């Protein structure tokens, strides 16, 4: 598993969570496993940290949450709504722009 790198992680969990929830409804543990799978374990999170992000996204009306009883346990399933999809597009564009900028800077010879 990759090392966690908090200084570079700002906004990344939010982007990944929105991207995964764009595909289908999921609950917390499912999302953590999916993050590990889609990033090929390059990104490692303390698993609990996804919940403040999920709650915040829901409060900002990007996600909907619903409780569901599964095998006697209560699970909270999250799904993306239309506003959340728009927010995801914006974040993706920002991410692409930053990524391009950083890649360009790293590709230039030092002192150029």
């Amino acid at each position, binding site marked *: 598993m990759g090392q966690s790198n908090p200084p570079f992680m700002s906004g990344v969990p939010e982007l990944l969570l929105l991207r995964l929830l764009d595909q289908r409804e999921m*609950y*917390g*543990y499912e999302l*953590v496993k999916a993050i590990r799978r889609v990033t090929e374990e390059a990104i490692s*999170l*303390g*698993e*609990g*940290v996804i*919940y*403040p*992000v999920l*709650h*915040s996204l829901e*409060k*900002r009306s990007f996600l909907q949450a619903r409780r569901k009883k599964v095998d006697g*346990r*209560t*699970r*909270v399933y999250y799904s993306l709504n239309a506003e959340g999809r728009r927010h995801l597009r914006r974040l993706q564009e920002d991410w692409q722009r930053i990524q391009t900028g950083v890649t360009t800077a790293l590709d230039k010879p030092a002192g150029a």
Partner: protein
Amino acid sequence: MRDHRLDALQEELLNAGIAPQNVKRLIIELNDHLEDLRLDEIARGETDAAARNMARDRLGDLSMLANQMRQRDELKDWIYRYPAIARIYLPLVWFLLLPAAPLFAGLAKPAEAMRWGAALMMSAGLTALLFLSMQLAIALT
């Protein structure tokens, strides 16, 4: 599986002003997550005790999680988000509404209000009758 660290986290978040419904849901989710992690580790051949410890490790540092919750104003109770409303305007509104309190009470419990009103009127009627009798007695003597 109940992790006692979650009780401390719950208290810490409530003290920090996180809305009780958000705290409650977070604790439910973390408990469920821990249980999934424990079952995962058991399925990989760990003993129950080892699986519990590994689940706690994988869940991560709860103080960091508490910090993340604290930094998000949208998760706080409205009293903490809008302290001016809570501390200045709300008491003022209640003060202005105070004279209308009997009306609100009457609307909330109409049957009791009717009984109370009838008793009050009867009491006032009785007082008036006694007063008039007294006046009549004074006039006659």
